[in-house]
């Protein structure tokens, strides 16, 4: 990842920051400054809750460069509660525990390390909703 793109994407990558369209009030992710729904300009930054459900998923065995240490790993399309679909890794879950429609939440994790000397890239992943009420 280049230094400009690391810096430019920091908020969307680390905290799932998107945009909200001032015309149709829909959430946009990733941020692109143009609303994909109504075509109007959409530049207002807006946080997403990070909650959603698994729309589809697959297990990646042949990982692209930089992701080899994590293979095999799960990649899912997550339908966020606010509407947008996001592609991301699932974490803290094994393949036999995942199902379509499973509630998930965003966490910030290590995406990859650029060798021993390069940058460590952090970003959003999703995990099964933590059972917060256990006490």
């Amino acid at each position: 990842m280049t230094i400009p793109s690391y810096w430019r994407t920091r908020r969307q990558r680390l905290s799932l920051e998107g945009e909200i369209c001032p015309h149709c009030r829909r959430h946009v992710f990733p941020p692109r400054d143009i609303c994909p729904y109504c075509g109007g300009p959409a530049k207002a930054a807006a946080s997403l809750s990070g909650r959603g459900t698994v729309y589809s998923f697959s297990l990646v065995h042949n990982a692209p460069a930089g992701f080899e240490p994590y293979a095999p790993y799960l990649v899912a399309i997550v339908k966020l509660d606010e509407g947008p679909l996001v592609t991301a890794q699932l974490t803290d879950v094994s393949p036999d525990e995942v199902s379509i429609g499973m509630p998930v939440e965003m966490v910030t994790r290590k995406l990859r390390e650029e060798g021993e000397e390069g940058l460590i890239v952090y970003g959003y992943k999703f995990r099964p909703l933590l059972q917060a009420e256990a006490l």
Partner: protein
Amino acid sequence: MSVMKPLRAVGIVGYGAYIPRFRLSTTEIDRIWHGGEALAPIREKAVAGLDEDTVTISIEAARNALARAGIAPSKLRAVWVGSESHPYAVKPSSAIVAEAIGATPETLGADWQFACKAGTEALQAAIALVGSGMADYALAIGADTAQGRPGDELEYTAAAGGAAYIVGPAEEALATLEGSYSYVTDMPDFWRRPMQRYPQHGGRFTGEPAYFAHTEAAVRALMEGLHIAPEEVTWAVFHQPNVRFPRRAAQELGFQPHHIAPGLLAEEIGNTYAGSALLGLSAVLDIAEPGQRILLVSFGSGAGSDAFLWRTTERIAERRSAAPFTRAYLARRTPIDYGTYVRYHGKLHMH
């Protein structure tokens, strides 16, 4: 010397825990290395997953603290991360954490270092920053993914986890600060030189003159300075490199087993270093009733202790359910074998 108190009354307005889901048992380490049976310091320890480190642990703990505080992250004027396992040698963990939680750019950011008391050192500084009136809110985190040399006695306990505390005005606090005290000497009980993967330690020397001397001196000075007797304290939380040390220190200071039970997590998660005492405190805040006094004392090799006396307020009961309890992370438990542990922590470096 007297107890430290800020000019403006302050307290904890939000707190949050994080513990990774993986557990490595003492029995499993013994299967590979033998020799640790006699030590049997704990049952199992928490181990970070492949995609976890001090930064990711800090981020989740901080988000939990923000949820309980109910404040906008942009109101934090300091994001401080105490750890001995910062992912970068040069590039602050605090900047990554601050960005991820939305505290940038109007904030201080720094990484603190003092072995296992790096987090409470950051907490003392957060108290000072808010207590002086320079800031309304400051975030102090203690987190680690601690490593011991394979087969070394440290490997049985060196664990991963962390907790985050937002210090703010006493009027908004879940627990107000009654006073704090710090005690430091140049003690060579444990160290790691630059570029070295694993620490060196003084073996049995780490107990008497290091852990017990510093912990007990700090607690005595604080409690005598505030004229508080152990019976007036409901909960006591110690740094917990194992289960034995905090139990003995508590006893020598006049506390009963019931004082320390809810904040003693080492049996289940090991020694989370900078996270250790702070995670114990989060477990206590999860169950404390309003008006109860809580003693918190850390110990960091090198060596020193920070001691704090807190008193819970009415707000504790209403705010704590805004984020997952410490017990929820303890209950989320996936045992792993030694081979998986080696994979999660990179190659098997013996030196």
